[in-house]
């Protein structure tokens, strides 16, 4: 059927009368459907634009049709492969293959790392919480309980507790000036003239502006390797609180696995649970193995050093187990540290009294970290919110 449409429209010359798609709407709507089936979000308005674009370039040259679609239907370079698939499939008459479903049901136990050092305190998570149970309310106990030791119900409850968190990164001076009611800053000619006009042309009360303040960008990098899973889910929840609290600040979240996945879009929904599920869907290697250095390098190349981490407060959640070369991790951390305002490393294992940063990756990263904090419980994540705001 699709091939038939292709033939039919192939007869139409390039100079189709302006404004009307030659070959009818069939090819437009059909191809857009194929593009959508390949996983691209195409708004209706873009379909109309694509139709007009086809009318303008004509249908006799496949590459023109290709580029007309690229310019009107694709908005991000990441979407190009999906578009290419849809294009190839649609114009060859094959059904579109969606990229293999990324949704993975993950049921992974503790991932034993092949890192040289020992793993102190990962298995016997959360001894601290139990003692306190006698004196504090159940909520209070939960706040201090190690997330890895929580039952699924407790974890649900812990996530609910975090929904109330207010996370905002430290402030910085903005270049945007605001009116200064005390009139002491730089002269604001616009409002001064207005006032002079009201005072019969005399400049009695000059108005002034001062530099405003804005929250810095907050960048959250979540290690999604197996041993980090309960914590990474909690930190993603924490990042969600940051996104929900944003008024004018900006939050970016990335999952660091064998590749870097930007999960910010998944965090913008108002329902954290749904956002988490979506984050899990987009991170193909959720709970897979990690090469932290490589992941960080990719982040630096594609986002961080380009601008996302510049002047930002960067929060990295990881236990520092790195299957790759620790030198790579050290170099990438140095690079990140040079552009970021502050780098906060959250290591849930730090809560264990016996913990010493022995993992080679962790040791390589530490010199470039401004704050090294724990992040194993709700209470410690609350403390993290304070650290980030400093």
């Amino acid at each position, binding site marked *: 059927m699709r091939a038939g449409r292709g033939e039919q429209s192939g007869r139409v010359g390039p100079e189709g009368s302006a404004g009307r798609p030659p070959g009818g709407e069939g090819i437009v709507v059909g191809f857009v459907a194929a593009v959508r089936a390949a996983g691209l979000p195409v708004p209706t308005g873009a379909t109309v634009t694509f139709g007009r674009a086809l009318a303008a370039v004509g249908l006799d040259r496949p590459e023109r049709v290709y580029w007309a679609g690229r310019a009107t239907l694709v*908005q991000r370079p990441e979407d190009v492969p999906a578009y290419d698939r849809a294009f190839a499939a649609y114009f060859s008459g094959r059904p579109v293959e969606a990229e293999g479903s990324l949704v993975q049901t993950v049921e992974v136990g503790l991932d034993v790392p092949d890192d040289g050092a020992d793993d102190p305190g990962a298995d016997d998570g959360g001894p601290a919480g139990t003692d306190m149970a006698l004196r504090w309310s159940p909520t209070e106990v939960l706040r201090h309980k190690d997330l890895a030791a929580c039952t699924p119900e407790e974890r649900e409850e812990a996530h609910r507790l975090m929904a109330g968190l207010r996370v905002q990164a430290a402030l910085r001076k903005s270049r945007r000036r605001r009116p200064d009611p005390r009139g002491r800053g730089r002269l604001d000619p*616009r409002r*001064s003239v207005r006032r002079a006009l009201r005072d019969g042309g005399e400049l009695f009360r000059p108005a002034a502006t001062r530099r405003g303040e804005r929250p810095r960008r907050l960048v959250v990098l979540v290690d999604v390797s197996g041993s980090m899973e309960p914590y990474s889910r909690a930190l993603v929840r924490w990042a969600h609180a940051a996104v929900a609290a944003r008024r004018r600040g900006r939050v970016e979240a990335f999952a660091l696995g064998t590749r870097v996945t930007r999960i910010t879009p998944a965090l913008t929904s108002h329902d954290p649970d749904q956002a988490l599920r979506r984050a899990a869907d987009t991170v193909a290697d959720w709970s897979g193995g990690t090469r932290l250095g490589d992941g960080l390098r990719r982040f630096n190349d594609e986002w961080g050093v380009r601008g996302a981490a510049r002047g930002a407060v960067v929060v990295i959640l990881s236990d520092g187990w790195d299957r790759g070369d620790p030198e790579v991790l050290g170099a990438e951390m140095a690079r990140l540290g040079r552009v970021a305002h502050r780098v906060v490393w959250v290591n849930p294992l730090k809560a264990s009294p016996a913990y010493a940063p022995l993992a080679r990756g962790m040791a390589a990263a530490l010199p470039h970290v401004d704050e090294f904090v724990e992040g194993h419980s709700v209470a410690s994540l609350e403390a993290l919110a304070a650290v980030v705001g400093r």
Partner: protein
Amino acid sequence: MASLDVDGVKAGLAGQDYLADEGLATAVFLALRLQRPLFLEGDAGVGKTEVARALAGWTGGRLVRLQCYEGIDAAQALYEWDHARQLVHLRAAEATGRARSASAEALEGELYDERFLIRRPLLQALSGAAGDAPPVLLVDEVDRADDEFEAFLLEVLADWAVTVPELGTVRAEVPPVTVLTSNRTRDVHDALKRRCLYHWVEQPAFEREVEIVRVRAPEVPEALARQVAAAVAGIRALGLYKPPGVAETIDWARALTLLGRAALDERSAGATLGSVVKYREDQQRVRDHGLDTLLRDAETVAGGP
């Protein structure tokens, strides 16, 4: 422009020393035909800004450039009143005693007159006369501006009209040809992209890069241009932090020609490496890889005479 087609765009831009590939030419053609802004993204130095320049040169429209930066606002992008002159005017009115006799409204009307208006780029771009070639509006590095500005830009791009409260609505007789560029330091809001045609500008393939160097720097001999382009391709494959763009290739070829080299050898390459590779770590990586290896490989790629 009625008989314009994609090949016409290619030829037109080539006339301005800009060699567009099929994809870019199609996108530009569509932007002209559909009167939509063109949103260009790509690595630094692939020639995004140059597109607008070439377009303006070709169509004869005036190039209006708006460089974005953090904190840019309407006063810098759209219009501003010349407050100093306004105050002088008020003083003059006072000195002649007119301030007392004239009504406050009349005085205000005098102050907010077109002659005290400073037109910033966006307003300039909306002021093209119907008969002339439309102005070319370049909104450069829009990713550097902040969200508030994006929302404001969206408004202007949507209906090519702005309202100056003191004067009324200014509507463009001819919508400007608009090019937005971004280095992708952050994602621009979807709503803004939706108004635009989108094109990701790729690094050119080897032969095209040679052509570009030849066109942009005619003083560079062909053999050298081929060597330099091949060497740059080799450097890009090394996985540097900041791989060199086309602009760097041109710079390098120019630098070598200025030094009077007809061919790229190890010594001159080492001396001029700073015009292509601009990070200490990256330079180290290139040197570790070995300039001789790089040049030998480049020789194979460049081939020819």
